[in-house]
C-alpha cells in the first residue's frame, strides 16, 4: 500500500514538475528585453578567488579555523560568479539562437559561435559548481584531481578535450 502511494506521489510530482518546466520555458521565451538582464561579472575577481597561490598564502598566514571560514566565503563567492556567468550565457544563447536564422551570413556565423560559447559555459559551469561546493565542504583540502576526485577530473578533461576536438580552429571569438 505504502509503495503504491509513493509511486502515485512520484507520478504527481513528475507531472507538476513537467508543467512547471514547460511554463518556465514559455516565460523565458517571452522575455521582452533579454539583453537588459545581463549582469556584469568581474573575471579578475573570480581569478583571484580560485587562485591556488592566493589560497596557499591564506593557508600559511591564517590560523586553520580562520582559513577554513575565509576559504568557504571565497568559494561561495566563486559559485555566485560562475552562476552569474552561466545565467548571462543562457540569456546570450537565447539571443544568439534567433540570430542563427538571420539571412546575413556574417550575423548567422557570429550567432553560431556565440551559441557554441554559451553552451560550453553552461557545460563547464555545471562541472565547476559541484567542484566549488566540494571545496566548501572540505575547505582545508586541496581540490586536486588526484586527491579528491580522480574519476571526476578524468571526466572533466574528456569534456574539455571533446570541446577542443569538435572545435579545433576556434580561437578568440570574433563575435565578441
Amino acid at each position, binding site marked *: 500500500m505504502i*509503495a*503504491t502511494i509513493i*509511486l*502515485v506521489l512520484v*507520478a*504527481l510530482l*513528475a*507531472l507538476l*514538475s*513537467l508543467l512547471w*518546466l514547460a511554463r518556465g*520555458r514559455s516565460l523565458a*521565451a517571452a522575455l521582452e528585453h533579454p*539583453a537588459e538582464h*545581463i549582469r556584469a*561579472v568581474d*573575471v579578475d575577481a573570480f*581569478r583571484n578567488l*580560485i587562485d*591556488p597561490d592566493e589560497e596557499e598564502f591564506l593557508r600559511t598566514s591564517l590560523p586553520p579555523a580562520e582559513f577554513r571560514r575565509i576559504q568557504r566565503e571565497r568559494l561561495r563567492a566563486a559559485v555566485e560568479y560562475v552562476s552569474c*556567468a552561466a545565467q*548571462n*550565457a*543562457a*540569456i*546570450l*544563447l*537565447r*539571443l*544568439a*539562437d*534567433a*540570430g542563427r*536564422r*538571420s539571412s546575413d551570413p556574417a550575423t548567422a556565423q557570429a*550567432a553560431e559561435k556565440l*551559441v*557554441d*560559447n*554559451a*553552451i*560550453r*559555459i553552461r*557545460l*563547464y559551469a*555545471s*562541472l*565547476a559548481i559541484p*567542484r566549488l561546493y566540494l571545496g566548501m565542504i572540505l575547505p582545508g583540502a586541496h*581540490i586536486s*584531481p588526484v586527491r579528491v576526485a580522480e574519476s571526476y577530473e578524468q571526466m572533466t578533461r574528456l*569534456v*574539455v578535450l*571533446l570541446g577542443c576536438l*569538435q*572545435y579545433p580552429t576556434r580561437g*578568440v*571569438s570574433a*563575435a*565578441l
Partner: protein
Amino acid sequence: MVLFLKILWYYLWIAPHILLGIILFVMAQRRLLRSFPIFFLYTAVEVLQFAVLFGIFLSDRHFGGDYERLFSGGMAVSSALRFGVVYEVFSHLFADYPALTETGKMLFRGVTILLLLACIAVAVIVPGKSIDLLMLATNTLDRTVSFLQCGLLLSVFIFSGYFALSLRSQAFGIALGLGTYASVQMATSAVLLYVGSTTNRLPNFVTMAAYHCCVLIWLWYLMMPERKPKYPSKALPEYDLEIWNQELQRMLQR
C-alpha cells in the same frame, strides 16, 4: 453504469482517436511527416488499433479473450513506438546544437540506465496482484514503460531548460503531451496493480481523460504556426564569454 458515465466513457474512448485522425491529416498537410516519422507512425497505429478494438467491442467476440489479447498486444506495440517518439524528441533537441550532441547521447543513455534500474527495483518491491496473468503482465509493462518515458521526458525538459535550448514548438508539444500522459498513466497503472482489477472504473477514466488532454496538446502544437524567436534589432551585447570559457576550463583542468 449510469447513463452519464456511459456517455463519458464512449466520448473519452472515441474522441481522442478522431482527434488523432485529424493529427494525421494535419501532419500530412503541413509536411511534418519527414520531421516526425515515428510520431506519425505511432499516431497511425493508435488509430488502427482503436478501429480494431472498437470493432471487436461492438461484436459478440467482446466477451471472449480476443479483446484482451489484442489490447495487450497493441499496448506493447504502442509502448515501443512511444520510446521511438521520445528518441525523436531528443534528436530534435540536439540537432540544432552540435556542441551538445555527444553530451546529449551520454545523457540519454545514462538516464535510461538509471531509470531501468529504478524500474527493476519498483517491480521487485511492488510486484502487483491479479488473477489474470495477461492483465498483470500488461499493467506491469504499462507501469514500467510510463515510468521510463516520464523520466526521460522530464530529463529533456530539465536539460533544455538548463542549457536554455529552444525546442521546436511541435517537438515541445509532443514531449509535453506524452509526458503528461506518461505521468498520469504511471499513477493509474500503479493503482490498478495494487487493486488487482482492470475493471476498476476510476483509474481507467483518469487514464482516458489524460490521454484526451495529451491528444489535445499534440493537436494544438501541431496546428500552431512555428514561433520564430525574435532577433534583437540592436547588435548583440558585448560579453566576455570566451574569457569565461578559458577561466572555467583552466579551473577544471587544475
